[in-house]
């Protein structure tokens, strides 16, 4: 019988079984892809079961075994994790559909390895989502890093090797060099690593008080996946990967696992009251704010679409970190909703980028002028995604910005509000300009630089869109961003226990 507790265990195990099946079906691509999709559906159902149970106030858990005395490999769902679990598994399903279209459209090599790595990665992401203690979180965090390495270096050329080196180097160096000692230090002080409402360090203020700032720094930079500057270089470098990888892992699972971990640690390990009282998080709040602006500034002059999106991700991730470091309940709420909203928005953008690549092999933004008239659906979805990221209603992205500003006001950090506003304006410049150019400018002809608006309208009879498997998913997520806007109240209520309400 599937209880929510078992369901958690299955969410970890199922993709691994799926991975095995994919391996066995190496020579039969259709069956292999069917296995991926079936796994995706089951996984989504399981995570929804967990999600519902958490919504009813349960905290389902599952413990595998103790690895080291007092340190079990254990899982326990709470609102934030349950939400992340649903987002990750839901988007994985969407992404699998998209991957099939992309990989077949591009005739990529080593597809079996690709789907296998993907399955392991999603298993790890679920492990991070439901982890009941820091120890478990760290284990799955590392598994996530390693399982995505084959994906990043999928192309296997020198470029991929360099990107992979930076990717693995930064993520492993930060996690082993900073995160691991931080966890052990926490363990040495509190003798537990369990995520506990109110924060375990808050219960040991005597011992932890003087080093809260140091520990918070170790966590904030140690979780390299959160891409807080200057730990961000892995993200743009990971863009050498095929687009589905970028879309899912570097816009959703990996980076979200990072900021999710930061939120979870701030809420359940430190406790926002502890941070508020000690003021330890203020410097990191500023670092996050600077990250937001700097990354946006870099994004503005990137011509490569994926690179621009990557820096946009760096910037957007720092919203979550910023929300956590504000150490107010509204800040945390803003960070949590940003995880969901940004996942939908950025997923849409990346999948559109991939669709453009599959259909026209274009990667530079300057080459995409006028392309909107050939693939209006793709750029339409892109437009919606971009609006959501910017934070315009009626799209999901507007809520996190709203909560964050409220949180900043609560914390008395008016400068942060101004920074958020500047950042939104920058987002408008570098994100909206892409579909606008695609729709309204003429293509750059050979040898001359075409400028100016105008030109022909869309020739609906003669579109050259990407294959349907590449097109439908971004449309679906774009619609999701729209729907989520109206579900914000439910989401807010759902996440209330996080900040001690509900």
């Amino acid at each position, binding site marked *: 019988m599937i209880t929510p507790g078992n369901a958690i265990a299955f969410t970890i195990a199922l993709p691994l079984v799926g991975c095995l099946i994919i391996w066995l079906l190496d020579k039969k691509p259709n069956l292999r892809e069917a296995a991926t999709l079936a796994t995706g559906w089951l996984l989504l159902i399981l995570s929804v079961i967990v999600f519902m149970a958490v919504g009813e106030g349960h905290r389902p858990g599952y413990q595998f075994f103790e690895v080291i005395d007092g340190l079990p490999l254990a899982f326990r769902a709470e609102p934030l994790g349950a939400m992340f679990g649903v987002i990750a598994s839901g988007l994985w399903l969407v992404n699998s559909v998209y991957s099939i279209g992309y990989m077949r459209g591009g005739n990529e090599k080593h597809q079996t390895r690709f789907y296998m790595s993907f399955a392991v990665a999603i298993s790890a992401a679920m492990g991070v989502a439901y982890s009941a203690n820091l120890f478990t979180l760290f284990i799955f965090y590392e598994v996530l890093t*390693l399982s995505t390495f084959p994906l990043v270096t999928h192309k296997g050329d020198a470029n991929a090797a360099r990107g992979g080196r930076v990717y693995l180097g930064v993520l492993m160096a930060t996690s082993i060099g900073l995160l691991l000692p931080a966890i052990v230090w926490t363990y040495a002080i509190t003798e537990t690593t369990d995520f506990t409402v109110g924060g375990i360090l808050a219960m040991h203020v005597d011992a932890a008080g003087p080093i809260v700032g140091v520990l918070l720094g170790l966590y904030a930079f140690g979780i390299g996946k959160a891409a807080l500057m200057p730990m961000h270089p892995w993200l743009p470098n990971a863009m050498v990967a095929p687009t589905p990888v970028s879309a899912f892992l570097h816009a959703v699972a990996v980076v979200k696992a990072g900021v999710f971990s930061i939120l979870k640690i701030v809420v359940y390990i430190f406790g926002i009251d502890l941070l508020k009282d000690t003021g330890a998080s203020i410097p990191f709040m500023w670092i996050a704010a600077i990250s937001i602006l700097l990354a946006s500034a870099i994004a503005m002059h990137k011509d490569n679409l994926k690179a621009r999106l990557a820096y946009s991700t760096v910037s957007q991730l720092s919203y979550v970190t910023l929300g956590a470091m504000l150490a107010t309940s509204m800040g945390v709420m803003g960070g949590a909703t940003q995880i969901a909203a940004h996942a939908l928005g950025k997923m849409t953008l990346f999948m559109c980028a991939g669709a453009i690549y599959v259909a026209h092999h274009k990667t530079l933004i300057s080459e995409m002028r006028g392309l909107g008239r050939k693939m209006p659906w793709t750029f339409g979805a892109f437009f919606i995604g971009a609006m959501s990221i910017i934070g315009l209603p009626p799209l999901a992205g507007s809520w996190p910005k709203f909560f964050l500003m409220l949180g900043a006001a609560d914390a008395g950090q008016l400068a942060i509000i101004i920074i958020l506003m500047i950042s939104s304006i920058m987002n408008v410049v570098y994100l909206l300009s892409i579909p606008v150019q695609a729709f309204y400018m003429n293509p750059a002809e050979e040898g001359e630089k075409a400028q100016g608006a105008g030109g022909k309208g869309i020739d609906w009879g003669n579109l050259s869109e990407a294959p349907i498997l590449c097109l439908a998913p971004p449309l679906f997520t774009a619609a999701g961003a729209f729907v989520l806007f109206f579900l914000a109240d439910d989401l807010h209520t759902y996440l209330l226990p996080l900040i001690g309400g509900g």
Partner: protein
Amino acid sequence: MNMIAQLPVLPVIVPLVLAPITLLLPKGRAPHLYATFVSWATFAACIFLLREVAEAGVLSYHLGDWAPPLGIEYRVDLANALVLVLVSGIAAVVFPFAYRSVQLEIDKHQSPFFYGALLICMTGLLGVTITGDAFNVFVFLEISSLSTYALIAMGARRDRRALTASFNYLVMGTIGATFFVIGIGLLYQATGTLNMADLHDRLAGQNSRVIDAGFAFILVGIGLKLAMFPMHLWLPNAYTYAPSAVSAFLAATATKVAVYVLIRFLFTVFGFDFAFLGAAFTWVLLPLGLAGMFVASLVAVFQEDVKRMLAYSSVGQIGYMLLGLSFATVEGVSASLVHVVNHALMKGALFMAVACVVLRAGSHSIHAFAGLSKRMPYTTWAFLISGLSLIGVPLTVGFVSKWYLLTAAFAAGHWYAGFLIVASSLIALLYIGRVAEVMLLREPATEGKYVIAKQDAPLSMLIPMWILVAANIYFGVNTDLTGDLARRAAEALMLTAGAG
């Protein structure tokens, strides 16, 4: 005279008596099968021994029925039972593994000598571990060392530098052993006994220059044997040019046993009553451990030869063990013991993977590893997983070691050491990552001497290697055996050492 009563002597007597018979066997398959069988029998005896000790507590065996402290006592407690199982277990895996590798690397007419010497080497290491008599330690240490010199020199068929490496090791090893025996002599002069437990009792409360000098001689002597930085210079060449199977065996056992001897002398023989001990921890083991962790690991990064890289890495890893000891806490000592076991597992597997590459590519240069994932996938993955273990990635034994070490460091208040430990792990990431990248992302050589066929190592090598790799994962997930035993062993050691 039931078998249980005789159990403690079996791990030494069985291979010691049976080893020479190897030479009488016809050349070819027979010596190998025979030696494999002997090593398995020894392993079985060690496992029984560990079970006995875990249940019944310390076992004492009087050799020739002469009671200690006059007679030689074999004394098995948890700490050495663990090391016994480790050494014999690695041997039980290396022997079946060795056949193809030996076939390639060693003259056929030498192969009976090879297996005989390897058995004797194992005997020596087991003897060092099991004995409770200080002078006996020296004798067994030399038994294992002498056979090791011969084994390393057998690498000369592939590369004559094995001979000079072996000679240098002989010189350093003999100096180390002689220092050790001088130290034992001084202790005997001061106490009149050679039995370790008895030594401990009689040293209690004594403080004289004789004992101080003895301590220093012993520390330096063992330091040479265990390649404590900066006394490690013999090790890289010895491991590099030894026959591949020998490298795998030595890297996994020889230095581990030396670490065990160090632990035994520091805690069981001297103990905290001995005023010098604290100073030795603070001013010798701690700084040398840290220095080894960094200097040797950094040197490893720049090696073109994978075997030599792993050898330097071993020196660095010994630094971790010394560091754990230097905390002089239960956590620290158990971290050291855990790392002794874990490092043996990972280094054994890594050297075995290199042996597989040598079998197919005929070289252990990093260039031979280019594109290996496309040529020898199972070997590549074995190398990768054990390499990750060396770095300390979760779900591997390396992580368990790091975790124990870090908690010990923070609990002992040496938080800076905690950061240095992880910093040094990152250096491991560099050198393992370098090989990993070559294996995974570089194209296989299509011309030149590093061209290899698309053919993985034979099953006789893959299976033993993957047993070790599986152990790397199993003990990384389930620490009931290693962690708990090490902790109990450390508690017992600290108790005898008089921690308070």
